[in-house]
Each structure stands twice: as structure tokens, then as C-alpha cells.
């Protein structure tokens, strides 16, 4: 019987113009969002690739100079020497033999690889650079490229499939089902149907199944097509596990909105009222509550802006420099090639530069840690308040699933800081020993290999959001089920 009613509903929907315009808009929105998300990921990958290529080029250039020098030393005899300062080309050992110069003047670009689903939810990834230059410089220099993005995209976020699912999908769902019962009642067909051996529950279920079946088939199919066309790493099990989670989250969120339409209809107002009430709920759930939560989070735990962080770090740097340097030292520190008293004095300055760098790092690093702690507090607050709105739960869930969450980025930054220390350690030890860097040593430079988080950790962070949506869905399903008995089929 319910099959008959579902096919009847489906036929009714197919014959209405509204269905086709809604499905058309869904297709248009998702195709555009997929294209936009794909472009964003491609741009990030291309940026990381180009930056790494540039720095590798610089390093290779130094290496070629060292090779030429090595060949010359072998041909002409003599000692393979350490270059303390920049010399005129062709004279003496090249810069490529100085570990300090190689480590400081070329950077190793480290990048956070996108997950297979990154294109489906851009999250914060458009403002959090996915590639950073690690060199001998301080953390200040490593992270100074963060938040240099277009301020407009900082303000508005970007249009991705997550946006379509969170903001637009509810509108499409409500447009299809705001008059689920009220239209039948107003048309007079409700009484005709319920004079047959059909319960109101079966009628509602068939209507929802017909609509959800159609809309969600289209959405999930388009999600799959988007994954194939703009997703990365389609061969990995991780991508498919994440896509499975994406499907679950999307279903939970969509069913919440369908159930909400049922809930409002069961309280038996006319279609116009139902539409207005549902539009109001959409506004509160999707726009007002998330904005308020974000306001509260920034008010309770105001994170210093990165601008302030940079200013503070620069101040700390200046103080550190002042403590260690005289005016003349400061000048020579910046212009090693002008140090008049020969190589030995210049080497002292290089050592001084190392020491200075370390002390700046010591002054600056705590500011970064503090900044991160404050960000984490904010994040934790949003995590707690997410249960106020399924839109927040969904945003957190989708970012987590797509690997664009704040937590994964922090996991990446921690590794970057570690690698930064490793890089500095590698070059400064060789430098301080005045070890002349040989071409063969270039093979032994530290490499950054991003260590992906365990999937269990991702699941554990995802669980509260999914569970929250599930409980909310149960509530929204249960209330109308109980209220159904009081539904007035006939006006008095």
C-alpha cells in the first residue's frame, strides 16, 4: 500500500513544474560549487608545487656551484673549503658549501596534502595556507604568509558543496514539503484519501519517502559525480570511507529538514503559515544561531588577530636583537659581505647571527603557542555550542570529513614546527662546526613527510556532530508522531 502511495506521490511530483525547477537549481548549485571547490584545491596544489619548485631551483643552483667547486678542487688539488661569506662569483668556495647559507636562504616548502574530499568542503583552507616555507628563519617568517588571502573571501567564505548542502539544500527541501499535508487539506483530497484504509502516518511517510528519495538521489549522485570530477586520490580507501561519512552526514541533515516540515504540517496550519514558520526556522537555525555562536566564541575567548601576533613577534624580535648587538654589530649582521677584518671575524658574526636567531625564536615562539591555545579555546567553545544548531554540527562534520577542520590544520602546524626545528638543527650544527657542505650532503637534507592523522581520531572528533544530528532528528521525528493523533482531518 505504501509503495502505491509513494509511486502516486512521485507521479504527482513529476507532473508539477515546481519539482523540475527545484531539481534544476540543485543541479546548477552543486555543479557550480563542485567547480569552485575543485578550482580552490587545484590552486592550492599548484601554489604548493610552484613554491617548492622555486626553492628546489635555488637549492639546486647552490648545489651545482658546489659541484663545480668540487670538480675544480679535484682537478687543481687543494682543500675543499668552507665559504664564510658571499664572495664574488668564481672566487673561492661558493655559498653552497656553507650549511648556514643553504639552510637560511633556501626554504623547504612543506605542504598539507588535501584529502580525497577536500573539494567538497573548503572550510578554512582558503585562509590557512596549505604550504609553508621552512628555513633557518624564525617562526615569524615561516608563518607570515598566513592570512594574506583576498579579504573578500575572508569575509564571505567560499562557495563549495558544503555551503550548498548546509544553506541551500534545506531551502529546496522546505520548498518541496512545506505544504505536505496542508495542500492536500486545502485541496480537499486529504479527506478523500483518509476515507480509505490509510493512516495519516503512512500518508506522511509515503510523501516524505517520495520527496526525499528523489531529491537525495540527485544530491548524492551529484556528490559522487563531483568527487569523480574534482576529488583527488580516488584510489584510496580513505577517500571512500570519507565519502561514506559525507553521505551519512548529508542524509541526517536532510532528513532533519524533511522531518521539520512534517512537524510543522502536523500542527495543522495553512500552507502560507507553514511556509512562513519554516522560513523563519531556517533563518534562525542556519543564519542567526551560527552567527551568535561565533560572536559568543570570539567575545568569550578573543583570539588576538594574526596582525597583532605579527606585531608582538616583531617587537620581541627587536628586543632580542637589541640585547645582543651593538649598532655596528647590527649593521654587519645585516651586511656580512662588508665585514672588513677577514673571514674569521665574519664567521664570528655568522655565529652571532645563529645565536641571535635562536634568542628571537625563544622570544617569539610562546606568542604563537598562546595564540594557538586561544584559538583552541574558541574552537572548543564552538564544539560545545554546535548542538544549538544542526547547521553548525553539519559545518563541523563536513570540515572534519573533508580534512579541512581546524584540528587537522593544527596537527599539520605541529609537524611544521617540529620540522622547522629539525631543519635548523641540521644546518646550524654543520655550520657551527664550519663543516664544508659537499654536493653529496644535499641528499641527506631533512625531508618533510606529512604524517596523516589516524582515521579513528577523525571519527572520534566527528562523532559528537553526527550523534547530535541523529538525536535532534529523533526528536523532530518523535514529536509529530505523538502529535499525529490530535491532527484534525476535518475542520469543525
Amino acid at each position: 500500500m505504501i509503495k502505491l502511495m509513494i509511486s502516486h506521490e512521485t507521479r504527482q511530483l513529476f507532473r508539477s513544474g515546481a519539482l523540475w525547477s527545484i531539481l534544476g537549481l540543485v543541479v546548477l548549485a552543486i555543479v557550480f560549487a563542485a567547480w569552485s571547490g575543485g578550482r580552490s584545491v587545484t590552486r592550492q596544489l599548484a601554489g604548493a608545487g610552484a613554491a617548492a619548485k622555486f626553492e628546489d631551483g635555488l637549492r639546486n643552483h647552490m648545489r651545482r656551484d658546489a659541484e663545480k667547486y668540487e670538480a675544480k678542487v679535484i682537478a687543481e688539488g687543494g682543500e675543499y673549503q668552507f665559504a664564510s661569506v658571499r664572495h664574488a662569483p668564481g672566487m673561492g668556495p661558493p655559498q653552497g658549501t656553507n650549511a648556514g647559507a643553504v639552510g637560511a636562504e633556501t626554504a623547504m616548502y612543506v605542504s598539507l596534502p588535501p584529502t580525497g574530499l577536500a573539494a567538497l568542503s573548503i572550510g578554512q583552507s582558503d585562509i590557512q595556507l596549505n604550504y609553508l616555507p621552512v628555513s633557518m628563519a624564525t617562526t615569524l617568517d615561516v608563518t607570515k604568509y598566513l592570512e594574506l588571502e583576498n579579504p573578500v573571501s575572508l569575509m564571505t567564505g567560499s562557495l563549495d558543496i558544503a555551503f550548498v548542502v548546509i544553506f541551500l539544500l534545506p531551502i529546496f527541501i522546505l520548498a518541496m514539503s512545506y505544504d505536505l499535508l496542508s495542500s492536500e487539506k486545502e485541496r480537499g483530497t486529504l479527506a478523500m484519501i483518509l476515507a480509505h484504509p490509510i493512516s495519516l502516518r503512512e500518508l506522511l511517510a509515503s510523501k516524505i519517502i517520495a520527496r526525499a528519495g528523489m531529491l537525495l538521489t540527485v544530491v548524492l549522485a551529484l556528490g559522487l559525480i563531483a568527487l569523480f570530477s574534482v576529488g583527488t586520490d580516488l584510489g584510496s580507501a580513505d577517500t571512500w570511507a570519507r565519502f561514506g561519512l559525507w553521505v551519512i552526514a548529508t542524509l541526517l541533515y536532510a532528513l532533519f529538514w524533511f522531518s521539520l516540515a512534517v512537524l510543522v504540517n502536523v500542527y495543522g496550519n495553512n500552507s502560507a503559515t507553514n511556509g512562513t514558520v519554516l522560513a523563519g526556522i531556517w533563518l534562525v537555525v542556519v543564519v542567526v544561531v551560527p552567527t551568535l555562536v561565533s560572536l559568543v566564541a570570539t567575545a568569550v575567548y578573543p583570539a588576538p588577530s594574526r596582525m597583532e601576533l605579527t606585531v608582538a613577534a616583531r617587537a620581541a624580535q627587536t628586543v632580542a636583537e637589541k640585547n645582543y648587538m651593538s649598532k655596528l654589530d647590527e649593521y654587519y649582521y645585516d651586511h656580512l659581505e662588508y665585514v672588513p677584518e677577514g673571514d674569521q671575524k665574519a664567521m664570528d658574526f655568522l655565529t652571532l647571527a645563529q645565536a641571535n636567531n635562536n634568542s628571537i625564536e625563544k622570544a617569539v615562539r610562546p606568542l604563537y603557542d598562546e595564540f594557538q591555545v586561544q584559538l583552541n579555546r574558541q574552537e572548543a567553545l564552538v564544539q560545545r555550542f554546535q548542538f544549538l544548531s544542526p547547521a553548525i554540527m553539519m559545518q563541523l562534520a563536513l570540515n572534519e570529513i573533508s580534512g579541512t577542520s581546524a584540528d587537522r590544520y593544527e596537527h599539520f602546524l605541529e609537524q611544521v614546527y617540529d620540522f622547522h626545528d629539525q631543519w635548523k638543527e641540521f644546518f646550524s650544527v654543520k655550520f657551527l662546526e664550519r663543516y664544508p657542505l659537499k654536493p653529496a650532503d644535499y641528499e641527506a637534507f631533512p625531508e618533510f613527510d606529512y604524517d596523516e592523522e589516524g582515521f579513528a581520531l577523525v571519527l572520534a572528533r566527528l562523532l559528537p556532530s553526527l550523534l547530535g544530528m541523529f538525536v535532534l532528528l529523533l526528536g523532530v521525528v518523535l514529536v509529530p508522531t505523538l502529535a499525529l493523533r490530535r491532527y484534525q482531518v476535518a475542520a469543525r
Partner: protein
Amino acid sequence: MLEAINLKKAYGNMEALKGLDLTVNSGDVYCLLGANGAGKTTTINLFLNFIEPTGGTAKVCGIDVTEQPLETKKLLAYIPEQVMLYGNLTAMENLRYFAQLGGHDYAPDEYRGFLNRVGLQPDAIDQRIKTYSKGMRQKVGVAIALAKRAKVLLLDEPTSGLDPKASNEFSQLLLQLKADGAAILMATHDLFRAKETGTRIGIMNEGRLVQELSTDEVSHADVERIYLEHMHAGDQYSQKVA
């Protein structure tokens, strides 16, 4: 058959039905007369379990409608003042859908047979219902009752607004259903049709059944006189209360 035993319905303080006892047997066409608000539609809605009674029982073929609503709805057919169907479906499609909802299915020719039997023009059968006149829609309503093999018919002012010819055709259909053994309860304002088609007449006033008549014992003039007497008595009573 239909049975109401001390059936009551109140909306807050307003008693719409004050203890109705009524029996409609197979082969009966029971016409409920009364002013608007007398409780006719409330009675029909109670038999349909569209509203819950505040007291008493309503039974269809001996089954309590509040206890087994889906069972009783297999047995009854409902024709409201406006038979509302799916405008974007044809008469055939509507009939098939409602028949299937009632748990029956037929070959296409049989559906056509039902629609022919109720006098729908053959060329209208495959047209979408939204082009139909009220008379045509009421005929499809009867076809649905036929396809459902309903033992009980609940009709709520089915002929109001129909032209005399359409009204007469509708009454002829009711007589056929009656001959087939259906128990028919019809709320109506049409005293003439009630006397012509009905076997019994019940006059309701302010939630009470005030008089029952057998149509073969009274004339058209009697029906009108008795009806008006009750209405006037009701008016005087109301004035006294006021």
C-alpha cells in the same frame, strides 16, 4: 450498516452532538435534515473517524470506528459536498488510485465500466479532472464507491450546487447503490430529494435528532411542514434562552 449509540461530540463548551442514537440498515437511504450547525457533518465525520467522539460509539458494520478505523474504512465510501480529486490526473487514474487505496484492483476495462455505469461521458474518462464540472466529479466519487464495493456510503450534501438534471442523475445512482444493498447516510438540505430518494428521514436540531420519519408514510408537503415546525421551535427555544 451504520450505528450510532449515544454518540457525543463537544468542542470545548460547545456541544455539537448531544447523544445521537441512529441506525441505518442495509438498503436504507437515511437522509439527515437540519440547519447548518445542527450536527449533520459532525455525525458523518465521527463515522469517518476524522474527529474523535467525546462520548458514545459509532459503528460501521458492527465495528467500532475508533478502535479499528482502518477496518471500517475498507467498508465505507465517502462523498463530500465537493469530491476533490487529483486535478492533474485523469478520471481513470484517479479511480484506479483510490480503488487501490481501498485494496481493490481491476482491469482497465472494468474501471471504464464503473465510469460508464455512473454516466460519465466516455470521451471525458481520459481527460484530466481539473477540466471537470462538479457534477462530473460527483459521478467519479460514486464510481470510487462502486469500485471499493462499499457496504456503507457517507454523503455530505453531495447534491448541493448541482443543477436539477445532474442532481436527478445522482439520485438515480444512489437508488442503484441502495438496490445493491448499501447502507446510505446522506446529509442534505434538499427536502424534495430526501423524500424522493430516501427511505427514512431524520431531522436534527442543535445537536439532537428531534424526529425520524419513514418517507413512504409522509407526503412532500408533510416533510416540509414538519421540518419547518422543528426549525421554528428551535428558534423560539434559542430566543427564550437568549
